[in-house]
């Protein structure tokens, strides 16, 4: 290859002069195929990477030298009141208005159907004056029951982790630091139960801010909100405890999140976005696999990161036996991975690592993918810019029925192998409950409501389209006469142009585990410490180990992947 011939012969020289144009494979060369990547069980083994949105954000904050200010702290002795935090990013000011209120224990629930929370937040566009602060303080605690304006960019709420929140305050009041084991076990002082963006309840549409530097990326405004909420939780316990937290413990206190089914349909209803996220990660992997050799510094870095992973795996404990068993298996397999990393071959070492990982569990394989990207920001970080979906919907490009049918056979071949006569293949149906519009999953044969099913049955629809096209000669006439197939046609057209746009599993099958969809999306956010409470509900930690505001000017700003207490 010409690129390899152009490489410097000295490995140390190679490291210092590595250039993107020398190591980039052509865009599609070497990417793992969608048939491998887009299976639910693999998506459900995703780990955060340096392309995860929270990570991209902290990198950006650091690059800009952003500084978090706290112009308002109106919190009383009991911890109730409001505070305002402001940060400048990309030439705009953004302010988090945080409102803390008393919440009786019996009202504390993570469910969407909750009506009150310990704290509520709005990310505000600009610096709010006293009238705007008063407006937000009145509205935010009501969450979905209130109305918001285009100056309000993100709406969120968070509940305390009662035992850790109280423990930290008691310890600080006693002049001591909180128990490290408990800090690690919980990982956060509060957990968000919703982070709303893009126009919900009257807040600003994403279109109004999507061109702004720094928050143009997917969920960037939401991630900025989460990172600022984390600072508020730190400040709140220090206020109530009367002294400062140890910085190392403070960094390990991320922000929790409790997530249910509501997150899953997003991956189905935003196929181009899903494609762009996946394609960015897979392109990044292809780039690092194409590295012909590594310098000593990169090798040492990979080994050091392997040790960080091992420490993370020890810290990651969950109550669910089946999920803990998966973590235990990664732990058991990891020493072999570390050993291999220590002795990586001279030629194509990262590619060798990924190939070697294929002998291990899917969880370990995906952890190796995230590991492989970590040292190579100089050749993968630019891919974050391609993770949005700025284009209008693609036009169906099929000239005739046969080309459409052929496209199904080419891109949706797997749906043609499903037998929807089997009860198990259509057991589930997705729906929206009238109860605060909470997305839920039902049993088609036992539960009412299947006639109001949400259209997540893509596989069934595409298969039905393929059958319906048999014998069709005039595609235009078919489409006019059979409008029920338009969704399937659009999905086929989309997948033909965007190979990672579809989850390649039947989402209404009895075997479908929505938790896999949640984990995939949350990993792209940057979540760690996945702690499933069922096959459709999980807790996670965001920003654990992330830079504190005062760390943004340090190397920590972009070096906190799976960072544990000791990192």
């Amino acid at each position, binding site marked *: 290859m010409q690129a390899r011939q152009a490489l410097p012969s000295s490995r140390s020289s190679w490291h210092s002069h590595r250039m993107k144009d020398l190591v980039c494979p052509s865009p599609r060369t070497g990417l793992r195929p969608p048939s491998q990547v887009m299976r639910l069980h693999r998506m459900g083994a995703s780990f955060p990477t340096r392309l995860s949105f929270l990570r991209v954000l902290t990198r950006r904050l650091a690059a800009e030298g952003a500084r978090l200010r706290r112009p308002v702290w109106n919190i009383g002795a009991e911890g109730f009141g409001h505070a305002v935090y402001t940060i400048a990013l990309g030439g705009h000011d953004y302010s988090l208005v945080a409102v803390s209120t008393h919440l009786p*224990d019996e009202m*504390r*629930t*993570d*469910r*969407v*159907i909750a009506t009150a929370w310990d704290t509520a937040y709005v990310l505000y566009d600009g610096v709010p004056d006293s009238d705007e602060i008063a407006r937000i303080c009145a509205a935010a605690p009501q969450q979905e029951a209130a109305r918001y304006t285009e100056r309000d960019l993100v709406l969120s709420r968070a*509940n305390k*982790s*009662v*035992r850790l929140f109280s423990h930290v305050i008691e310890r600080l009041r006693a002049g001591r630091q909180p128990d490290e084991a408990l800090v690690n076990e919980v990982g956060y002082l509060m957990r968000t139960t919703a982070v709303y963006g*893009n*126009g*919900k*309840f*009257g*807040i*600003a*549409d*994403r*279109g*109004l801010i999507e*061109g702004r530097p720094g928050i143009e990326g997917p969920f960037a405004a939401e991630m900025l909100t989460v990172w600022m909420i984390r600072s508020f939780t730190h400040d709140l316990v220090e206020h109530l405890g009367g002294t400062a937290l140890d910085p190392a413990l403070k960094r390990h206190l991320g922000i929790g999140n409790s997530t*249910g*089914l509501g997150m899953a349909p997003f991956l189905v209803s935003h196929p181009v976005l899903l494609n762009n996220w996946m394609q960015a990660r897979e392109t990044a992997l292809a780039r690092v696999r194409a590295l012909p050799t590594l310098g000593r510094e990169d090798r040492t870095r990979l080994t050091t990161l392997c040790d960080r992973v091992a420490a993370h795996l020890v810290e990651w404990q969950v109550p669910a036996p089946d999920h803990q068993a998966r973590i235990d298996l990664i732990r058991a397999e990891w020493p072999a991975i570390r050993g291999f990393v220590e002795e990586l071959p001279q030629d194509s070492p990262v590619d060798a690592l990924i190939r070697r990982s294929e002998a291990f569990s899917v969880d370990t394989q995906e952890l190796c993918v995230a590991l492989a990207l970590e040292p190579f920001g100089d050749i993968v970080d630019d891919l974050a810019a391609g993770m949005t979906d*700025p284009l*209008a*919907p693609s*036009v*169906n490009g099929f000239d005739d029925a046969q080309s459409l049918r052929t496209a199904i056979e080419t891109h949706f071949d797997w749906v043609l192998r499903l037998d929807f006569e089997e009860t198990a293949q259509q057991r589930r149906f997705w*729906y*929206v*409950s*009238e*109860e605060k519009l*909470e997305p*839920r*999953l*039902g049993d088609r044969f036992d*539960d*009412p*409501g299947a006639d*109001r099913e*949400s*259209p997540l049955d893509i596989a069934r629809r595409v298969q039905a389209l393929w059958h319906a096209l048999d014998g069709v000669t005039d595609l*235009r006439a078919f*489409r*006019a006469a059979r*409008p*029920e197939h*338009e*969704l399937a*046609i*659009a999905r086929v057209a989309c997948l033909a142009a965007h190979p990672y746009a579809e989850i390649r599993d039947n989402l209404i099958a009895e075997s479908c585990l*929505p938790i896999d969809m949640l984990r995939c999306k949350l990993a792209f956010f940057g979540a760690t410490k996945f702690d499933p*409470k*069922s*096959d*459709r*509900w999980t807790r996670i930690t965001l920003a654990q180990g992330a830079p504190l505001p005062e760390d943004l000017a340090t190397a920590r700003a972009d070096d906190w992947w799976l960072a544990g207490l000791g990192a």
Partner: protein
Amino acid sequence: MSYSANEIATLAQKAARGAGFPPHQAQIFGAATVQFLASGGEAQALLDALSDPDDSPILRLPLLVEDIQRAVDLAGPEITLTLQPGDEALAPAYARLTALHITRAELGQSEDGLPRLCLDTAPVQGAAPTLPPRIAADPALIDRLSTLAALTYVPATDSSRSAGAGAGDIDND
């Protein structure tokens, strides 16, 4: 009362589904409703479109979006398309869903009396034109859309509340 564009799009999409339209056409109707209201369209045209799920511009106009793109590719930036009677009110809003910048959209009539849509288009340069920050909507329209949207919601039961969402019940940890 004013709304975000996404609120309107989501509500109109659900309303179309609740009225019995297929999901893809409902989604496009949601986006077109935003364009329609942002350009000052009258609510009645939307309500009329929702009234008959077997004969409606909501079924026909998504194909117009494709026709516009193909016509521009073949004939250049200035095109005229013949519409089905009843589709003219919403057609310009659907036209704005193409990946083109619509510089002129005028309705006319063909010699045989059919409605026609005349468009001048240009490639989108740089960022797409943004919608206004707020979309004004008649309360009666919102009420009707909400009523139709509610037809897609499933009544809650104790079983769905617990098993359907799969949530844990240990919230005070």
